[in-house]
């Protein structure tokens, strides 16, 4: 892991002012992504992982806003940028892949036109050169007969092929970081496998870092180097993927791993590990640790103080079990 | 009991709709005006300063009195009198009764017809759907006024002469009602097509409910939203249509003048100088229709989930 992180998120806080009060959707989240690394951000719905991604790309929908914290890309602050300056960063240095390939592409323009436009907007090349790069990108993402496909419209591609085009678009301007928000959720299992492999391979080849946001631990296991687990807008655990999956420290992560059905590992009808209750709504987060009402290992301190990410092994876990002085 | 009502009221006040209402001064004004018009029309017999249709109270010599603030006016007749000595303010109040009554009744009829046809069309589909929608398309190629005139004319031919006046109001309601069902039907049909494919409808089918039960109990409550908005704005259109028909002389009989009739009668005197006999009913009509329209606009925006 090299010295300067590519992306640094420090104490990020995303709020939504509503007429019933302010909702804190992301609360004091910090992590870093090294160049070329794949960081998985995993959590269930409402955990705040998509909003974290949106905040980084600068696509937070008002009234949502970044209320505190800093986001630094290659050392420069980007969280306070607006308008034209943000636009130049987005697309050029940060690429984005969203969940629905159908709505990510403009149905009125051919795939070739969209690629060329993106390349020309961000790179100082001639039109011919842009066309050549577009062709190369299409073949890199595994689209057969790319020359002919350049002139096709999005609806002429199948779901899996469209997502490949979206990946090509994200890579077009040679970004340093790609934020992928649930890129495989809408796809069939067999296509999912292909797309995951593609993303991982391309990231390695181009040296692009990837922030992979998903609720699917399996996808993380296949693709990520490190993983951040989010719960109720906070960071529960952060560490190397092997460690978090095989040795989860935070009780939530442990519960999550136990709840995931695994093929062939257990005998049929075995009870899955169940975490009772549900993730608290944003306006009803309990004091102390957000997970404490559902935690089998809860003790006194958990209901009173909110835990900081504490080092344990190679990972960080926001849990009082790992404080040296706690009891 | 009182506590329950109070708590319901408090929740209603806090509701998104009430909050959006409170934020818009234009809407509050429109609502107030609509309420004032409706109130004075409803309670006309008690609220109006005079009864313009009781010939015993009429005084021909009081005819053509100008409004109270002009030099020949009198405080007794606030907005002046017409040629027969009837107080203009009172005739407006009574006239608004007819206008509002016909308007509301026509909208109710229209909505019932349109919603039913839209539901059947959307849910049952097939040839029934094609037929109803073609009829709707054909009807839409005619202006609504023409349709209303057509129906009015046909019923006049069908009914014996002496019954004309008695049934005029009902015929009017029928005419305006039939001319307006298409917008409800189209909207409801669209919503029904969407709801039909939702899983709660499929669940009801699996449970074994018949198509009519499903349409009535499951689909209808979910497609009524836009109907309310269309209906509110339609009230304004219906009132105008009635006024137009009455102005043309084929609406309500002169014994029960609506605002439209009043405008027509007053029109005769406009250029001889007695402007107040037509202008005030005209203004009343404008205020009524405008406030209902604004209320409908607010309702449409407030209920639109995309704008929230």
């Amino acid at each position, binding site marked *: 892991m090299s010295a300067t992180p590519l992306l640094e998120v420090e104490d990020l806080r995303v709020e939504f002012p509503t007429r019933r009060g302010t909702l804190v959707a992301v609360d004091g989240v910090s992590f870093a992504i090294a160049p070329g690394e794949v960081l998985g951000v995993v959590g269930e719905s409402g955990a705040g992982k998509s909003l974290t991604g949106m905040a980084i790309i600068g696509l937070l929908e008002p009234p949502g806003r970044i209320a505190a914290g800093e986001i630094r890309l290659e050392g420069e602050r980007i969280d306070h940028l607006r308008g034209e300056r943000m636009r130049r960063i987005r697309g050029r240095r940060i690429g984005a892949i969203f969940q629905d390939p159908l709505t990510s592409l403009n149905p009125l323009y051919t795939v070739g036109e969209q690629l060329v436009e993106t390349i020309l907007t961000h790179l100082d090349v001639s039109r011919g050169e842009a066309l050549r790069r577009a062709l190369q990108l299409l073949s890199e993402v595994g689209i057969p007969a790319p020359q002919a496909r350049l002139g096709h419209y999005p609806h002429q591609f199948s779901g899996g092929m469209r997502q490949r085009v979206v990946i090509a678009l994200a890579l077009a301007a040679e970004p340093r970081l790609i934020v992928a928000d649930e890129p495989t959720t809408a796809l069939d*299992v*067999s296509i999912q496998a292909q797309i995951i492999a593609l993303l991982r391979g391309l990231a390695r080849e181009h040296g692009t870092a990837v922030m992979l946001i998903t609720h*699917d*631990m399996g996808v993380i296991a296949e693709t990520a180097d490190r993983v951040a687990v989010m719960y109720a807008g906070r960071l529960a655990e952060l560490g190397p993927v092997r460690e978090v999956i095989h040795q989860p420290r935070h009780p939530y992560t442990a519960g999550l791993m136990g*709840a995931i059905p*695994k093929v062939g590992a257990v005998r049929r009808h075995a009870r899955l590990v169940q975490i009772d209750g549900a993730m608290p709504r944003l306006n009803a987060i309990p004091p102390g640790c957000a997970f404490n009402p559902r935690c089998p290992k809860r003790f006194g301190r958990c209901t009173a103080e909110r835990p900081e990410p504490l080092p344990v092994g190679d990972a960080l876990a926001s849990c009082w079990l790992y404080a040296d002085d706690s009891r | 009991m009182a506590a329950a009502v109070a708590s319901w009221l408090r929740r209603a006040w806090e509701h998104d709709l009430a909050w959006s209402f409170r934020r818009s001064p234009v809407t509050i004004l429109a609502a107030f005006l609509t309420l004032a018009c409706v109130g004075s029309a409803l309670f006309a017999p008690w609220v109006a300063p005079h009864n313009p249709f009781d010939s015993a109270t009429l005084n021909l010599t009081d005819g053509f009195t100008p409004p109270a603030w002009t030099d020949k006016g009198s405080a007794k007749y606030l907005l002046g009198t017409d040629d027969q000595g009837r107080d203009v303010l009172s005739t407006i109040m009574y006239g608004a009764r007819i206008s509002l009554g016909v308007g509301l009744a026509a909208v109710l009829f229209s909505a019932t017809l349109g919603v039913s046809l839209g539901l059947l069309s959307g849910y049952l589909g097939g040839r029934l759907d094609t037929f109803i929608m073609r009829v709707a398309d054909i009807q839409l190629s005619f202006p609504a006024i023409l349709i209303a005139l057509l129906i009015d004319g046909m019923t006049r031919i069908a009914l014996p002469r002496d019954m004309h006046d008695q049934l005029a109001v009902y015929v009017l309601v029928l005419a305006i009602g039939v001319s307006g069902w298409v917008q409800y039907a189209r909207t409801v049909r669209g919503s029904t097509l969407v709801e039909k494919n939702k899983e709660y409808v499929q*669940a009801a089918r699996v449970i074994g409910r018949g198509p009519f039960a499903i349409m009535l109990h499951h689909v209808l409550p*979910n497609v009524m939203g836009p109907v309310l908005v269309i209906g509110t704005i339609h009230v304004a259109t219906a009132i105008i249509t009635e006024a137009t028909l009455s102005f043309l002389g084929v609406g309500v009989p002169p014994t029960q003048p609506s605002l439209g009739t009043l405008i027509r009668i007053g029109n005769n005197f406009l250029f001889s100088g007695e402007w107040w006999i037509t202008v005030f009913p005209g203004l009343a009509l404008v205020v009524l229709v405008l406030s209902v329209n604004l209320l409908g606009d607010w309702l449409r925006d407030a209920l639109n989930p995309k704008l929230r």
Partner: protein
Amino acid sequence: MIRADRPLVRLIEVGRDFDVSKPWLNRVVEGAPRLMLRAVDGVSFDVSQGETLALVGESGCGKSTVARLIVGLYPLSRGRIEFDGRDLAAPDTDAARLRRRMQMIFQDPYASLNPRWRVRDIVAEPVRVLGLAATKGAERARVAELLRQVGLAPEDGEKYPHEFSGGQRQRISIARALSGNPEFLVCDEPTSALDVSVQAQILNLMTELQERLGLTYLFISHNLAVVSHIADRVGVMYLGRMVELAAAAQLFAAPRHPYTRMLMDAIPDLEMSGKARTPVVGEVPNPLAPPAGCAFHPRCPHADARCRSERPQLRPAAAGAVACHAVAEGRL
């Protein structure tokens, strides 16, 4: 307890076509032909009383259509469905009466409950329609009992669906499905729209209810891991056809059909064992123009001339059935 001698549901060569032709006018003007989509093509299987049969496959394989054919949401185009030994389509069968013994749970917890109805009315609907409660009081008691059974409180009956989370709504769906005392439950991807931890709760609940009430499940899913936890037998579908049908333990230990193997390989490896896997090839072809012969042949590494021309039948192989020429010929 599974009664293998008593098939509760039998599907025999079931088929369903959808007419996706352009409107009549367009066809006349453009001279375009009628287009029929064969969503389900010659599917046969039994579900024994007390068992859980899972149907797996990717989008467009027809598994949801099979579910809807069984409960009667779509009419059959071909074939026969028997419930408790009686043909549901035969004129002298009281199909409506038989269908009262089956219910369905849907995938989308947000669209499967009428947003304008209170929960108690939603759950009570089958009770009312089937006339199972003599008085209002009995009905209310039944609803309360059902809500408790699925892990909710009786007071929740007064609320509206939007006040509940996805997992809770799915519980309400289950309560509704159970209120008519069905024997057979068709579950169309009931946990696909739920978070992992909620999914675990619902799967545990469904297993518990099956044991307690002696239910038979047809469980539709695209998630093989979920299926491995809940199914006794598994049927794998591809492009409207059944390609493999076997006991769950057998299927997951030793899948025979090349498509099943491909699906297994495509499952993300949580163990991160680094096990070698065959990369997945190609995409599901357009169901409007299925390949000739075996539907899977364009993506199959073992396809030969026979596969390209002749459609394989579901034949017994080892402890299950496979529709594959390569397996039948012993090449695989």
